[in-house]
């Protein structure tokens, strides 16, 4: 015989509306959006990589890092041509751990140099 206490742990119990057959609709809608977001991220990543290359911003490693950062949601803006934006992006990459302290310092010096 299970001994039960007088008190309780559940505050109120209500009835939840059952919505049948919605799982696939929701999953479909969500995955369609996530795929789209992913593709957008890929395009931004490519753009970031290209502009990073054009500006001689970095060696291939940093360009790949920029691409990776651009692909991460929420996607940051692709590398802007001005110095401030490049520095900001470098800082973000550093904060995100994509760039090590040494890599960050080297790239920053290159930008400011």
């Amino acid at each position, binding site marked *: *015989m*299970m*001994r*039960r*206490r*007088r*008190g*309780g*742990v*559940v*505050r*109120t*119990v*209500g*009835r939840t*509306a059952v*919505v049948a057959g*919605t799982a696939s*609709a*929701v999953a479909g*809608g*969500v995955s369609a*959006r996530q795929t789209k977001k992913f593709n957008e991220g890929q395009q931004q990543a490519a753009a970031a990589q290209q502009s990073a290359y054009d500006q001689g911003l970095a060696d291939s490693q940093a360009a790949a890092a920029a691409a990776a950062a651009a692909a991460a949601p929420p996607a940051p803006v692709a590398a802007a041509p001005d110095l401030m934006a490049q520095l900001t992006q470098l800082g973000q990459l550093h904060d995100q751990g994509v760039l090590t302290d040494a890599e960050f310092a080297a790239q920053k010096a290159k930008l400011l140099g």
Partner: protein
Amino acid sequence: MREMGPIDWMLIEFDQPFTGKAAPPLFDLVDRGVITILDVMFIRKLSDGSVQAIEISDLPGDEAIHINVFDGFETGILGDDDVAAAGEAMEVDTRAIMLVFENTWAAPFAIALREGGGVVVDSGRIPVQSIIGALDELDALEASLEG
């Protein structure tokens, strides 16, 4: 010390005898360490509206066999007030199983969060209608921008 995951409860009502059909997928979650059952209670609401917690052994033989797998998971965490609260939500002539379980899967996440300086401020459950509504709204917004 092991970190605890968030603890949920669930009341599952049946208007027919227990078949034990849902037990294997549930215990699969237990075996895989996804959840940990903290208490289980069986409740009956009779046609006169009276509500009572029942023992597995109170059930007819074949029914008891089907849910015997829950034997030993009862701890007494759920109390009389929980029986009454469950009874108020239950339909007459039904039986129910009330579960209290830990979301064990969330424990490693909680540890990592804390180590990273994160604090879970709040969390909750979103009605699926709200998600459908949000997706519909997004679709409409995009259609209006494209059109």
